[in-house]
Protein backbone atom coordinates (compact mmCIF):
# COMPACT_ATOMS: atom_id res chain seq x y z
CA UNK A 1 0.00 0.00 0.00
CA UNK A 2 1.35 3.43 -1.00
CA UNK A 3 1.90 5.50 2.16
CA UNK A 4 0.25 8.60 0.68
CA UNK A 5 -2.52 6.75 -1.21
CA UNK A 6 -5.81 8.62 -0.66
CA UNK A 7 -9.53 8.62 -1.42
CA UNK A 8 -9.41 12.41 -1.85
CA UNK A 9 -10.91 13.13 -5.31
CA UNK A 10 -12.03 16.12 -7.40
CA UNK A 11 -15.35 16.37 -5.57
CA UNK A 12 -13.44 16.74 -2.28
CA UNK A 13 -11.29 19.53 -3.71
CA UNK A 14 -14.49 21.23 -4.89
CA UNK A 15 -16.10 21.04 -1.41
CA UNK A 16 -12.99 22.46 0.26
CA UNK A 17 -12.48 25.24 -2.29
CA UNK A 18 -16.10 26.45 -2.10
CA UNK A 19 -16.05 26.31 1.67
CA UNK A 20 -13.02 28.50 2.24
CA UNK A 21 -14.60 31.43 0.39
CA UNK A 22 -17.70 31.56 2.61
CA UNK A 23 -16.01 33.31 5.56
CA UNK A 24 -14.76 36.13 3.35
CA UNK A 25 -18.32 36.82 2.20
CA UNK A 26 -19.47 36.86 5.84
CA UNK A 27 -16.64 39.29 6.70
CA UNK A 28 -17.78 41.70 3.98
CA UNK A 29 -21.48 41.44 4.92
CA UNK A 30 -21.04 42.06 8.67
CA UNK A 31 -18.62 44.95 8.28
CA UNK A 32 -21.53 47.40 8.68
CA UNK A 33 -22.11 46.18 12.25
CA UNK A 34 -18.63 47.25 13.41
CA UNK A 35 -18.98 50.84 14.58
CA UNK A 36 -16.66 51.07 17.54
CA UNK A 37 -13.63 49.30 19.04
CA UNK A 38 -15.67 47.17 21.44
CA UNK A 39 -17.71 45.89 18.45
CA UNK A 40 -14.47 44.84 16.77
CA UNK A 41 -12.80 43.22 19.79
CA UNK A 42 -15.67 41.89 21.95
CA UNK A 43 -18.63 42.06 19.50
CA UNK A 44 -20.22 44.84 21.55
CA UNK A 45 -20.43 42.38 24.51
CA UNK A 46 -23.54 40.94 22.92
CA UNK A 47 -22.85 37.17 22.95
CA UNK A 48 -25.59 34.98 24.32
CA UNK A 49 -25.01 31.48 25.65
CA UNK A 50 -25.28 29.17 22.63
CA UNK A 51 -23.43 31.34 20.15
CA UNK A 52 -20.77 31.84 22.81
CA UNK A 53 -20.41 28.05 23.18
CA UNK A 54 -20.04 27.70 19.41
CA UNK A 55 -17.43 30.41 19.15
CA UNK A 56 -15.45 29.20 22.18
CA UNK A 57 -15.41 25.68 20.75
CA UNK A 58 -14.56 27.00 17.29
CA UNK A 59 -11.58 28.81 18.75
CA UNK A 60 -10.27 26.12 21.03
CA UNK A 61 -10.81 23.28 18.57
CA UNK A 62 -8.41 24.13 15.79
CA UNK A 63 -6.71 22.03 13.14
CA UNK A 64 -3.58 22.26 15.25
CA UNK A 65 -5.56 20.94 18.24
CA UNK A 66 -6.70 17.98 16.17
CA UNK A 67 -3.12 17.40 14.98
CA UNK A 68 -1.39 17.47 18.35
CA UNK A 69 -4.08 15.44 20.08
CA UNK A 70 -4.12 12.80 17.36
CA UNK A 71 -0.33 12.70 17.60
CA UNK A 72 -0.67 12.04 21.35
CA UNK A 73 -3.16 9.23 20.66
CA UNK A 74 -0.91 7.81 17.93
CA UNK A 75 2.15 7.77 20.21
CA UNK A 76 0.66 7.05 23.65
CA UNK A 77 -2.70 5.37 23.06
CA UNK A 78 -5.56 5.67 25.54
CA UNK A 79 -3.24 6.87 28.29
CA UNK A 80 -3.37 10.30 26.57
CA UNK A 81 -7.10 10.50 27.42
CA UNK A 82 -6.16 11.63 30.92
CA UNK A 83 -5.38 15.11 29.54
CA UNK A 84 -8.96 15.38 28.28
CA UNK A 85 -10.37 14.31 31.64
CA UNK A 86 -8.18 16.79 33.54
CA UNK A 87 -9.05 19.64 31.19
CA UNK A 88 -12.79 18.88 31.32
CA UNK A 89 -12.83 18.82 35.13
CA UNK A 90 -10.91 22.13 35.22
CA UNK A 91 -13.28 23.84 32.74
CA UNK A 92 -16.32 22.52 34.59
CA UNK A 93 -14.88 23.79 37.89
CA UNK A 94 -14.38 27.25 36.36
CA UNK A 95 -17.96 27.14 35.00
CA UNK A 96 -19.48 26.12 38.33
CA UNK A 97 -17.51 28.55 40.50
CA UNK A 98 -17.01 31.37 37.97
CA UNK A 99 -13.39 31.48 39.18
CA UNK A 100 -11.66 34.44 37.50
CA UNK A 101 -13.94 34.67 34.44
CA UNK A 102 -17.00 35.98 36.30
CA UNK A 103 -15.08 38.82 37.95
CA UNK A 104 -13.16 39.69 34.79
CA UNK A 105 -16.40 40.02 32.82
CA UNK A 106 -17.84 42.17 35.62
CA UNK A 107 -14.85 44.48 35.32
CA UNK A 108 -15.66 44.99 31.59
CA UNK A 109 -12.06 44.61 30.46
CA UNK A 110 -11.33 43.69 26.84
CA UNK A 111 -7.95 42.00 27.43
CA UNK A 112 -6.24 40.33 30.40
CA UNK A 113 -3.44 42.96 30.69
CA UNK A 114 -6.14 45.63 30.91
CA UNK A 115 -6.91 44.08 34.29
CA UNK A 116 -3.23 44.31 35.24
CA UNK A 117 -3.41 48.08 34.85
CA UNK A 118 -6.61 48.39 36.87
CA UNK A 119 -5.05 46.42 39.69
CA UNK A 120 -1.29 46.97 39.47
CA UNK A 121 -0.65 50.00 37.27
CA UNK A 122 0.36 50.76 33.70
CA UNK A 123 3.89 49.30 33.77
CA UNK A 124 2.60 45.87 34.73
CA UNK A 125 0.10 46.09 31.91
CA UNK A 126 2.79 46.83 29.33
CA UNK A 127 5.09 44.04 30.60
CA UNK A 128 2.15 41.64 30.72
CA UNK A 129 1.06 42.69 27.23
CA UNK A 130 4.51 42.10 25.76
CA UNK A 131 4.84 38.65 27.38
CA UNK A 132 1.31 37.70 26.35
CA UNK A 133 1.90 38.75 22.75
CA UNK A 134 5.29 36.99 22.72
CA UNK A 135 3.97 33.71 24.13
CA UNK A 136 0.77 33.88 22.08
CA UNK A 137 2.33 34.64 18.71
CA UNK A 138 5.09 32.04 19.21
CA UNK A 139 2.36 29.60 20.25
CA UNK A 140 0.74 30.09 16.84
CA UNK A 141 4.09 29.58 15.14
CA UNK A 142 3.57 25.96 14.12
CA UNK A 143 -0.11 26.14 13.16
CA UNK A 144 0.61 26.51 9.45
CA UNK A 145 3.17 23.71 9.51
CA UNK A 146 0.72 21.32 11.19
CA UNK A 147 -1.96 22.39 8.70
CA UNK A 148 0.37 21.69 5.79
CA UNK A 149 1.12 18.19 7.15
CA UNK A 150 -2.59 17.47 7.50
CA UNK A 151 -3.17 18.67 3.95
CA UNK A 152 -0.35 16.49 2.66
CA UNK A 153 -1.58 13.39 4.48
CA UNK A 154 -5.22 13.76 3.45
CA UNK A 155 -4.86 14.83 -0.17
CA UNK A 156 -1.72 12.86 -0.96
CA UNK A 157 -0.40 16.04 -2.58
CA UNK A 158 3.22 16.20 -1.49
CA UNK A 159 4.75 19.08 -3.48
CA UNK A 160 6.20 21.30 -0.71
CA UNK A 161 6.03 24.52 -2.76
CA UNK A 162 2.39 23.90 -3.70
CA UNK A 163 1.52 23.19 -0.09
CA UNK A 164 3.11 26.41 1.10
CA UNK A 165 1.17 28.34 -1.52
CA UNK A 166 -2.09 26.67 -0.49
CA UNK A 167 -1.55 27.39 3.20
CA UNK A 168 -0.58 30.98 2.39
CA UNK A 169 -3.83 31.38 0.43
CA UNK A 170 -5.84 30.08 3.38
CA UNK A 171 -4.11 32.43 5.78
CA UNK A 172 -4.86 35.30 3.40
CA UNK A 173 -8.58 34.41 3.50
CA UNK A 174 -8.52 34.50 7.30
CA UNK A 175 -6.71 37.83 7.31
CA UNK A 176 -9.27 39.38 4.97
CA UNK A 177 -12.37 38.48 6.95
CA UNK A 178 -10.79 39.16 10.34
CA UNK A 179 -9.51 42.59 9.30
CA UNK A 180 -12.92 43.46 7.81
CA UNK A 181 -15.36 42.18 10.40
CA UNK A 182 -13.42 41.74 13.64
CA UNK A 183 -15.17 39.79 16.39
CA UNK A 184 -18.63 39.95 14.77
CA UNK A 185 -17.25 38.23 11.68
CA UNK A 186 -15.23 35.82 13.81
CA UNK A 187 -18.30 34.84 15.84
CA UNK A 188 -20.48 34.12 12.79
CA UNK A 189 -17.72 32.14 11.10
CA UNK A 190 -17.00 30.24 14.29
CA UNK A 191 -20.65 29.21 14.48
CA UNK A 192 -20.64 27.90 10.91
CA UNK A 193 -17.30 26.21 11.48
CA UNK A 194 -18.44 24.66 14.77
CA UNK A 195 -21.33 22.96 12.96
CA UNK A 196 -19.30 21.77 9.94
CA UNK A 197 -16.36 20.64 12.04
CA UNK A 198 -18.49 18.84 14.62
CA UNK A 199 -20.44 16.91 11.99
CA UNK A 200 -17.16 16.05 10.27
CA UNK A 201 -15.61 14.84 13.53
CA UNK A 202 -18.58 12.67 14.47
CA UNK A 203 -18.78 11.12 10.99
CA UNK A 204 -15.02 10.62 10.98
CA UNK A 205 -15.20 8.84 14.34
CA UNK A 206 -17.89 6.51 13.02
CA UNK A 207 -15.76 5.49 10.02
CA UNK A 208 -12.59 5.18 12.13
CA UNK A 209 -14.23 2.90 14.72
CA UNK A 210 -15.98 0.88 11.99
CA UNK A 211 -12.67 0.30 10.19
CA UNK A 212 -10.78 -0.85 13.31
CA UNK A 213 -13.66 -2.57 15.14
CA UNK A 214 -14.87 -1.70 18.66
CA UNK A 215 -13.18 -4.70 20.36
CA UNK A 216 -9.89 -4.36 18.42
CA UNK A 217 -9.79 -0.70 19.42
CA UNK A 218 -9.40 -1.60 23.08
CA UNK A 219 -6.74 -4.26 22.57
CA UNK A 220 -3.25 -2.76 22.80
CA UNK A 221 -1.37 -3.27 19.47
CA UNK A 222 1.51 -5.76 19.52
CA UNK A 223 3.97 -2.94 18.86
CA UNK A 224 2.90 -1.09 22.02
CA UNK A 225 3.46 -1.91 25.72
CA UNK A 226 0.06 -3.05 26.97
CA UNK A 227 0.08 -1.37 30.39
CA UNK A 228 1.41 2.01 29.28
CA UNK A 229 -1.07 2.10 26.35
CA UNK A 230 -3.86 2.59 28.92
CA UNK A 231 -2.27 3.81 32.15
CA UNK A 232 -0.83 7.38 32.09
CA UNK A 233 1.29 6.88 35.20
CA UNK A 234 2.72 3.50 34.12
CA UNK A 235 6.39 3.25 33.22
CA UNK A 236 6.93 3.83 29.50
CA UNK A 237 3.67 5.77 28.97
CA UNK A 238 5.67 8.94 28.26
CA UNK A 239 3.66 10.80 30.92
CA UNK A 240 3.98 10.03 34.68
CA UNK A 241 2.92 11.91 37.82
CA UNK A 242 4.93 15.08 37.15
CA UNK A 243 3.32 15.37 33.72
CA UNK A 244 -0.16 14.82 35.18
CA UNK A 245 0.44 17.60 37.73
CA UNK A 246 1.78 19.91 35.01
CA UNK A 247 -1.37 19.25 32.96
CA UNK A 248 -3.62 20.09 35.94
CA UNK A 249 -1.94 23.47 36.40
CA UNK A 250 -1.59 24.20 32.68
CA UNK A 251 -5.14 23.30 31.62
CA UNK A 252 -6.72 25.07 34.60
CA UNK A 253 -4.80 28.28 33.98
CA UNK A 254 -5.31 28.08 30.21
CA UNK A 255 -9.01 27.43 30.70
CA UNK A 256 -9.42 30.57 32.76
CA UNK A 257 -6.92 32.85 31.08
CA UNK A 258 -5.94 31.89 27.56
CA UNK A 259 -6.71 35.21 25.88
CA UNK A 260 -8.54 33.81 22.84
CA UNK A 261 -10.82 31.70 25.04
CA UNK A 262 -11.26 34.29 27.76
CA UNK A 263 -12.16 36.83 25.08
CA UNK A 264 -15.41 34.85 24.64
CA UNK A 265 -16.21 35.22 28.32
CA UNK A 266 -15.41 38.93 28.09
CA UNK A 267 -17.71 39.19 25.03
CA UNK A 268 -20.58 37.48 26.86
CA UNK A 269 -23.77 39.45 27.34
CA UNK A 270 -23.62 39.16 31.12
CA UNK A 271 -21.17 37.79 33.74
CA UNK A 272 -23.65 34.97 34.37
CA UNK A 273 -23.52 33.94 30.71
CA UNK A 274 -19.69 33.96 30.94
CA UNK A 275 -19.93 31.46 33.78
CA UNK A 276 -22.53 29.24 32.08
CA UNK A 277 -20.41 29.27 28.93
CA UNK A 278 -17.62 27.40 30.71
CA UNK A 279 -19.92 24.85 32.34
CA UNK A 280 -21.52 23.90 28.99
CA UNK A 281 -18.26 24.04 27.08
CA UNK A 282 -16.66 21.41 29.30
CA UNK A 283 -18.32 18.91 26.93
CA UNK A 284 -16.61 20.42 23.90
CA UNK A 285 -13.29 20.57 25.74
CA UNK A 286 -13.63 16.83 26.31
CA UNK A 287 -14.47 16.27 22.65
CA UNK A 288 -11.61 18.41 21.36
CA UNK A 289 -9.20 16.06 23.16
CA UNK A 290 -10.84 12.63 23.04
CA UNK A 291 -12.09 12.55 19.44
CA UNK A 292 -8.75 13.45 17.77
CA UNK A 293 -6.95 11.11 20.19
CA UNK A 294 -9.38 8.37 19.13
CA UNK A 295 -8.42 9.01 15.49
CA UNK A 296 -4.75 8.84 16.43
CA UNK A 297 -5.27 5.55 18.26
CA UNK A 298 -7.21 4.08 15.30
CA UNK A 299 -4.42 5.31 13.00
CA UNK A 300 -1.77 3.54 15.08
CA UNK A 301 -3.74 0.27 15.15
CA UNK A 302 -4.22 0.55 11.37
CA UNK A 303 -0.53 1.29 10.77
CA UNK A 304 0.60 -1.53 13.04
CA UNK A 305 -1.56 -3.96 11.02
CA UNK A 306 -0.08 -2.78 7.69
CA UNK A 307 3.61 -3.74 7.34
CA UNK A 308 4.46 -1.20 4.63
CA UNK A 309 2.95 1.65 6.62
CA UNK A 310 4.57 0.43 9.81
CA UNK A 311 8.01 0.50 8.20
CA UNK A 312 7.36 4.08 7.00
CA UNK A 313 7.00 5.16 10.63
CA UNK A 314 10.08 3.28 11.87
CA UNK A 315 13.82 3.72 11.46
CA UNK A 316 16.07 6.75 11.02
CA UNK A 317 14.01 8.18 8.11
CA UNK A 318 10.67 7.62 9.83
CA UNK A 319 7.75 9.87 8.90
CA UNK A 320 6.80 12.46 11.54
CA UNK A 321 4.13 10.93 13.80
CA UNK A 322 1.84 13.87 12.97
CA UNK A 323 1.28 12.17 9.60
CA UNK A 324 -0.32 9.12 11.22
CA UNK A 325 -3.88 10.42 11.57
CA UNK A 326 -4.23 12.19 8.18
CA UNK A 327 -2.76 9.22 6.31
CA UNK A 328 -5.23 6.95 8.10
CA UNK A 329 -8.38 8.98 7.43
CA UNK A 330 -7.33 9.48 3.80
CA UNK A 331 -7.56 5.71 3.39
CA UNK A 332 -10.66 4.80 5.40
CA UNK A 333 -13.04 7.66 4.59
CA UNK A 334 -14.91 7.52 1.27
CA UNK A 335 -14.59 10.37 -1.21
CA UNK A 336 -17.14 13.09 -0.47
CA UNK A 337 -17.00 12.48 3.26
CA UNK A 338 -13.27 13.09 3.05
CA UNK A 339 -14.01 16.48 1.48
CA UNK A 340 -16.41 17.24 4.32
CA UNK A 341 -13.82 16.27 6.93
CA UNK A 342 -11.15 18.32 5.16
CA UNK A 343 -13.55 21.30 4.98
CA UNK A 344 -14.24 20.81 8.69
CA UNK A 345 -10.54 20.76 9.46
CA UNK A 346 -9.91 23.85 7.38
CA UNK A 347 -12.84 25.42 9.20
CA UNK A 348 -11.00 24.59 12.41
CA UNK A 349 -7.82 26.04 10.96
CA UNK A 350 -9.57 29.29 10.11
CA UNK A 351 -11.62 29.62 13.30
CA UNK A 352 -8.50 29.29 15.44
CA UNK A 353 -6.42 31.62 13.32
CA UNK A 354 -9.05 34.36 13.22
CA UNK A 355 -9.46 34.37 16.99
CA UNK A 356 -5.77 34.20 17.76
CA UNK A 357 -5.03 36.98 15.28
CA UNK A 358 -7.73 39.11 16.88
CA UNK A 359 -6.55 38.30 20.40
CA UNK A 360 -2.88 39.09 19.95
CA UNK A 361 -3.49 42.14 17.79
CA UNK A 362 -5.91 43.49 20.43
CA UNK A 363 -3.22 42.99 23.07
CA UNK A 364 -0.62 44.81 20.96
CA UNK A 365 -2.98 47.76 20.46
CA UNK A 366 -4.67 47.95 23.85
CA UNK A 367 -1.92 46.77 26.16
CA UNK A 368 1.35 47.82 24.56
CA UNK A 369 0.90 50.71 22.11
CA UNK A 370 -2.02 52.56 23.74
CA UNK A 371 -0.52 52.58 27.28
CA UNK A 372 2.82 53.72 25.85
CA UNK A 373 0.93 56.58 24.16
CA UNK A 374 -0.77 57.23 27.51
CA UNK A 375 -4.29 56.84 26.14
CA UNK A 376 -3.91 59.48 23.45
CA UNK A 377 -5.29 57.20 20.73
CA UNK A 378 -8.79 57.58 19.33
CA UNK A 379 -11.03 54.56 18.70
CA UNK A 380 -10.42 54.96 14.98
CA UNK A 381 -6.64 54.94 15.43
CA UNK A 382 -6.85 51.88 17.67
CA UNK A 383 -8.94 50.06 15.06
CA UNK A 384 -6.35 50.89 12.40
CA UNK A 385 -3.44 49.70 14.59
CA UNK A 386 -5.34 46.49 15.41
CA UNK A 387 -5.88 45.82 11.70
CA UNK A 388 -2.24 46.54 10.85
CA UNK A 389 -1.15 44.24 13.71
CA UNK A 390 -3.33 41.43 12.33
CA UNK A 391 -1.61 41.67 8.95
CA UNK A 392 1.87 41.91 10.53
CA UNK A 393 1.29 38.82 12.68
CA UNK A 394 -0.02 37.03 9.60
CA UNK A 395 3.19 37.80 7.71
CA UNK A 396 5.28 36.60 10.65
CA UNK A 397 3.32 33.33 10.74
CA UNK A 398 3.94 32.75 7.07
CA UNK A 399 7.69 33.05 7.52
CA UNK A 400 7.99 31.31 10.90
CA UNK A 401 5.35 28.63 10.38
CA UNK A 402 6.31 27.45 6.94
CA UNK A 403 10.08 27.63 7.12
CA UNK A 404 10.92 27.02 10.80
CA UNK A 405 11.29 23.39 11.90
CA UNK A 406 10.73 22.95 15.67
CA UNK A 407 13.24 20.71 17.45
CA UNK A 408 10.51 19.33 19.75
CA UNK A 409 7.08 17.71 19.38
CA UNK A 410 4.06 19.84 18.52
CA UNK A 411 2.33 19.54 21.93
CA UNK A 412 5.61 20.14 23.77
CA UNK A 413 6.10 23.33 21.78
CA UNK A 414 2.51 24.47 22.43
CA UNK A 415 2.68 23.74 26.16
CA UNK A 416 6.00 25.53 26.63
CA UNK A 417 5.14 28.65 24.63
CA UNK A 418 1.77 28.79 26.39
CA UNK A 419 3.45 28.57 29.79
CA UNK A 420 5.57 31.66 29.05
CA UNK A 421 2.39 33.68 29.40
CA UNK A 422 0.17 31.47 31.55
CA UNK A 423 2.48 30.92 34.53
CA UNK A 424 2.66 34.66 35.20
CA UNK A 425 -0.86 35.56 34.09
CA UNK A 426 -2.61 32.95 36.20
CA UNK A 427 -0.70 33.95 39.33
CA UNK A 428 -1.14 37.69 38.72
CA UNK A 429 -4.86 37.58 37.91
CA UNK A 430 -5.77 35.11 40.64
CA UNK A 431 -3.78 37.06 43.25
CA UNK A 432 -5.01 40.39 41.89
CA UNK A 433 -8.64 39.34 42.19
CA UNK A 434 -8.56 37.36 45.41
CA UNK A 435 -5.58 38.58 47.51
CA UNK A 436 -5.61 42.15 48.80
CA UNK A 437 -1.86 42.18 49.56
CA UNK A 438 -0.82 41.38 45.96
CA UNK A 439 1.53 44.15 44.82
CA UNK A 440 2.87 45.41 41.49
CA UNK A 441 6.38 44.15 42.36
CA UNK A 442 4.99 40.68 43.03
CA UNK A 443 3.05 40.85 39.74
CA UNK A 444 6.15 41.90 37.78
CA UNK A 445 8.25 39.08 39.28
CA UNK A 446 5.52 36.53 38.51
CA UNK A 447 5.21 37.71 34.91
CA UNK A 448 8.96 37.53 34.28
CA UNK A 449 9.10 34.08 35.91
CA UNK A 450 7.09 32.83 32.93
CA UNK A 451 10.14 33.27 30.73
CA UNK A 452 11.73 30.28 32.53
CA UNK A 453 9.42 28.08 30.45
CA UNK A 454 11.64 28.70 27.41
CA UNK A 455 14.16 26.33 29.07
CA UNK A 456 11.61 23.59 28.37
CA UNK A 457 12.39 23.53 24.64
CA UNK A 458 16.18 23.49 25.05
CA UNK A 459 18.35 20.63 23.71
CA UNK A 460 18.91 19.32 27.28
CA UNK A 461 15.29 18.10 27.35
CA UNK A 462 15.90 15.71 24.41
CA UNK A 463 17.27 12.20 24.16
CA UNK A 464 17.30 9.10 26.35
CA UNK A 465 17.83 9.12 30.14
CA UNK A 466 17.18 12.83 30.68
CA UNK A 467 17.10 13.45 34.47
CA UNK A 468 13.63 14.46 35.66
CA UNK A 469 14.73 17.98 36.63
CA UNK A 470 15.76 18.70 33.03
CA UNK A 471 12.56 17.35 31.47
CA UNK A 472 10.15 19.74 29.77
CA UNK A 473 7.29 18.74 32.09
CA UNK A 474 9.30 19.44 35.26
CA UNK A 475 10.53 22.78 33.90
CA UNK A 476 6.95 23.68 32.93
CA UNK A 477 5.59 22.78 36.36
CA UNK A 478 8.41 24.61 38.16
CA UNK A 479 7.75 27.75 36.09
CA UNK A 480 4.31 27.96 37.69
CA UNK A 481 5.80 27.35 41.14
CA UNK A 482 8.46 30.07 40.67
CA UNK A 483 5.83 32.53 39.42
CA UNK A 484 3.72 31.80 42.48
CA UNK A 485 6.69 32.27 44.84
CA UNK A 486 7.63 35.48 43.00
CA UNK A 487 4.15 36.90 43.57
CA UNK A 488 4.08 35.99 47.27
CA UNK A 489 7.65 37.13 48.04
CA UNK A 490 7.43 40.31 45.92
CA UNK A 491 4.11 41.32 47.47
CA UNK A 492 5.19 40.72 51.05
CA UNK A 493 8.64 42.29 50.70
CA UNK A 494 7.60 45.20 48.46
CA UNK A 495 3.97 46.11 49.16
CA UNK A 496 2.33 48.84 47.11
CA UNK A 497 1.92 52.25 48.70
CA UNK A 498 -1.39 52.36 50.52
CA UNK A 499 -2.75 55.28 48.56
CA UNK A 500 -2.14 53.63 45.22
CA UNK A 501 -3.52 50.30 46.36
CA UNK A 502 -6.57 51.97 47.86
CA UNK A 503 -7.17 53.89 44.67
CA UNK A 504 -6.90 50.77 42.53
CA UNK A 505 -9.21 48.83 44.78
CA UNK A 506 -11.75 51.64 44.59
CA UNK A 507 -11.45 51.54 40.81
CA UNK A 508 -12.10 47.81 40.83
CA UNK A 509 -15.08 48.18 43.12
CA UNK A 510 -16.44 51.03 41.01
CA UNK A 511 -16.07 48.91 37.90
Amino acid at each position, binding site marked *: MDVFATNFKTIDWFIVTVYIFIPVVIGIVVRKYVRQLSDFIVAGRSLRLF*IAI*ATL*TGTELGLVTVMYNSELGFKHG*FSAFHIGIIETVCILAIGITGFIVYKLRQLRVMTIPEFYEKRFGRNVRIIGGILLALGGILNMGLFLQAGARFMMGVTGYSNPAGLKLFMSAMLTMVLIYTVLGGMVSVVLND*FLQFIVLSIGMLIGSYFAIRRIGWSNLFAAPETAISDSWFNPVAEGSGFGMIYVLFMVVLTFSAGALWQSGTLRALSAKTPKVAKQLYAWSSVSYLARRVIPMLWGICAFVFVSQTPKLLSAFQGPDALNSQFGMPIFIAKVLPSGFLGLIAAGMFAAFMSTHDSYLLSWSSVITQDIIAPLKRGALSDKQRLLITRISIITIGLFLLIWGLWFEAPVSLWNYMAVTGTIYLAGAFTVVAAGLYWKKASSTGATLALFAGLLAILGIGPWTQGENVPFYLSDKFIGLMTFVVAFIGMIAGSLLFPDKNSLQGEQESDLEAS
Partner: protein
Amino acid sequence: MNWVILWKGVLLLTLIGYSLLVVIVFFGGINNIIAMLQDLSSPRNELENDE
Protein backbone atom coordinates in the same frame (compact mmCIF):
# COMPACT_ATOMS: atom_id res chain seq x y z
CA MET B 1 -8.42 0.30 38.37
CA ASN B 2 -9.73 -1.13 35.10
CA TRP B 3 -8.44 1.39 32.59
CA VAL B 4 -10.17 -0.22 29.59
CA ILE B 5 -13.62 0.15 31.13
CA LEU B 6 -12.83 3.73 32.16
CA TRP B 7 -11.69 4.76 28.67
CA LYS B 8 -14.64 2.97 27.02
CA GLY B 9 -16.98 4.97 29.24
CA VAL B 10 -15.16 8.22 28.52
CA LEU B 11 -15.29 7.60 24.77
CA LEU B 12 -19.01 6.79 24.76
CA LEU B 13 -19.78 9.76 27.02
CA THR B 14 -17.84 12.07 24.71
CA LEU B 15 -19.48 10.91 21.49
CA ILE B 16 -23.02 10.99 22.90
CA GLY B 17 -22.57 14.20 24.91
CA TYR B 18 -20.94 16.08 22.06
CA SER B 19 -23.63 14.98 19.56
CA LEU B 20 -26.32 16.36 21.87
CA LEU B 21 -24.39 19.58 22.41
CA VAL B 22 -24.07 20.15 18.65
CA VAL B 23 -27.85 19.81 18.17
CA ILE B 24 -28.62 22.15 21.11
CA VAL B 25 -26.08 24.76 20.05
CA PHE B 26 -27.23 24.67 16.42
CA PHE B 27 -30.84 25.62 17.23
CA GLY B 28 -30.00 27.89 20.15
CA GLY B 29 -27.19 29.57 18.22
CA ILE B 30 -29.38 30.65 15.30
CA ASN B 31 -31.68 32.55 17.68
CA ASN B 32 -28.65 34.02 19.43
CA ILE B 33 -27.20 35.30 16.13
CA ILE B 34 -30.44 37.08 15.24
CA ALA B 35 -30.54 38.71 18.68
CA MET B 36 -26.86 39.70 18.47
CA LEU B 37 -27.26 41.40 15.11
CA GLN B 38 -30.32 43.26 16.44
CA ASP B 39 -28.26 44.40 19.43
CA LEU B 40 -25.45 45.63 17.21
CA SER B 41 -27.86 47.50 14.91
CA SER B 42 -29.56 49.43 17.71
CA PRO B 43 -28.19 52.20 19.99
CA ARG B 44 -26.27 50.59 22.84
CA ASN B 45 -26.42 50.75 26.62
CA GLU B 46 -23.94 48.04 27.56
CA LEU B 47 -24.04 48.71 31.29
CA GLU B 48 -27.48 47.19 31.50
CA ASN B 49 -25.91 43.84 30.58
CA ASP B 50 -24.03 43.70 33.84
CA GLU B 51 -27.15 43.74 35.96
